[in-house]
């Protein structure tokens, strides 16, 4: 307990003093320097903490991990062995396959439902209330969301009353209960559904904001010209929302590739639901560093196209500025 009180004191007193003190002392030192040098040095004083953190915690460790991926657990060079292992081992291959399922279905459902829901909600007067409902899971942690969904997917032996919401509904409709999390045809989709439930609100909010930007006269004109609602959606709304949809899609692809919490809490990766990020975690926990690093590098390669796309988009935005 004492250690915690000390930590709290550090957090409340020392952290702000260090942060504010850094810039004040830095500027004081700059003021002692000749003006010309101070002018050139000043920006580095301001960006130093950020650049240092990014370098120590992101850039150098990433490079280091790439190097480790060519070593065995003891640090001896083994060439491409860890990658050969990744692409021949059923566990890692299985998780790669599941990440592709996440990539396709999680992304597809989040973007698709986000679009559909914002278009539907746009037509009712209680729109903001309705949006709050869909948005509500977003501030909930994946850990809590997993506990929430355990009650949705729960299965009791046949004959006993079903306590899981979905199996109770199935039972009422006269169907047999399903072992959602164990059955290998349903379990990955069950986990993806949790992710969709959490993230759709995000897509909805963004799409809905973009939707408000489309002139209603344009939509009216199309309707007057005889376009039905589906055509309005396909020919006008979706093309106009394309930049927004692209941004959300790339964000969701990254989320799908990095997914960890839901499989970790729901199944610990059992019953063929494992994903790359959890494989990586489990291998680190076993000090199987070389293979873990190779898993990480595969993950990095998977996000690289989006990384390059983002840089290109950023450059374009900068030119406009």
């Amino acid at each position: 307990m004492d250690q915690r009180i000390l930590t709290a004191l550090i957090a409340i007193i020392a952290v702000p003093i260090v942060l504010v003190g850094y810039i004040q002392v830095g500027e004081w030192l700059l003021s002692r320097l000749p003006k010309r040098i101070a002018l050139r040095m000043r920006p580095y004083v301001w960006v130093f903490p950020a650049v240092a953190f990014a370098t120590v915690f992101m850039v150098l460790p990433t490079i280091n991990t790439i190097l480790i991926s060519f070593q065995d657990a003891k640090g001896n060079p083994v060439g491409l062995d860890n990658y050969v292992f990744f692409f021949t081992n059923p566990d890692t291959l299985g998780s790669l396959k599941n990440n592709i399922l996440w990539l396709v279905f999680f992304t597809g459902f989040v973007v698709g439902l986000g679009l559909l829901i914002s278009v539907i909600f746009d037509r009712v007067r209680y729109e903001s209330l309705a949006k709050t409902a869909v948005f509500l899971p977003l501030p909930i942690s994946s850990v809590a969301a997993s506990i929430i969904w355990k009650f949705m997917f729960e299965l009791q032996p046949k004959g006993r009353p079903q306590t899981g919401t979905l199996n109770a509904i199935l039972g009422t409709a006269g169907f047999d209960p399903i072992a959602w999390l164990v059955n290998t045809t349903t379990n990955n989709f069950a986990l993806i559904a949790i992710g969709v439930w959490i993230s759709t609100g995000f897509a909805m909010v963004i799409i809905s904001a973009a939707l408000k930007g489309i002139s209603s006269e344009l939509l009216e004109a199309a309707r007057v010209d005889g376009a039905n609602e589906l055509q309005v959606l396909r020919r006008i709304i979706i093309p106009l929302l394309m930049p927004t949809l692209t941004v959300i899609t790339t964000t969701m692809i990254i989320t799908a590739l990095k997914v960890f919490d839901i499989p970790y809490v729901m199944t610990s990766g059992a019953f063929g639901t494992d994903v790359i990020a959890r494989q990586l975690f489990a291998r680190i926990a076993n000090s199987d560093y070389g293979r873990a690093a190779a898993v990480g590098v595969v993950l990095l390669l998977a996000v690289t196209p989006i990384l390059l796309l983002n840089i290109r988009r950023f450059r374009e935005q900068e030119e406009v500025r």
Partner: protein
Amino acid sequence: MSVATRATARVATRSTARDLRQRFRKVPLHVSVGIVMAIWLIPTLGLLVNSFRTVQDMKTSGWWTALYPPAGFTLDSYRTIIDAPGFTDSILNSLLITVPATVIQVVISLFAGYAFAWMNFRGKDFFFIVIVALLVVPVQLTFIPVLKLFAALGLSGTFVAIWLAHTGYGLPFQTYLLRSYIGSLPREVFESADIDGANHPTKFWRIVVPMSIPAIAANLIFVFLGVWNDLLIAVTYLGQSPNRPLTVLIGQQTTSLGGNWQVLTAAAVIQMVLPLAVFLGLQRYFVRGISAGAVKG
């Protein structure tokens, strides 16, 4: 009743039939909105109801049976979980991790955001391109070297370690957001401050910070929730430590309890309370944070 309203009322009665038809045509719309809302609300409602039932009840009947009498509501789960070893500590840990990690991250990003937006220096574009690239680099990739680093520094399992880690991981995104916000502040304000002879700290504390309050508030809320809800980073650096937060405790218990995970219902509710309160209380800032986040892609 004024003449005008009476007239409107008469018009209204005349067109009732058409109104009614119009309203009926809207029934499928309202039904679908209702279904969507139900799908998104029911799971959380189920957890909430179950958290006030005994574990025995949770295992033998669905949460909806408690909606009609005898409900059998009790605080048993909450009592059990609060008495459970390490539970109250882990709530405290969550706060001790979240508050400093949030403050450090946002303040450092403000410094950098200001420099990137309003100062010129060699390497500026390069540094910022790296920041943009880091937005999508999976943090998992850094775990092995950073774990070794903490071990070498004697920081393994400490609060300081997780503050630093969260700061390093969250910083690129915060810097990215704050740079674009600070960069959009009007140039004239800075120019007139220059004429008055204001130095950079003065401009930063008197102009940049006060004018960026909406962005800072949105970012603080957003980072706070992100760190509070984080499992991956905490389980990696504090998985075996007495300093582990609530999310790690719940996550590890769910996997280790197996068939008895129902005791964790109350814990999950307690974990959710703070984010939900923040969300409902500060929804506007929260939505702004989300929308700003969409720029990153």
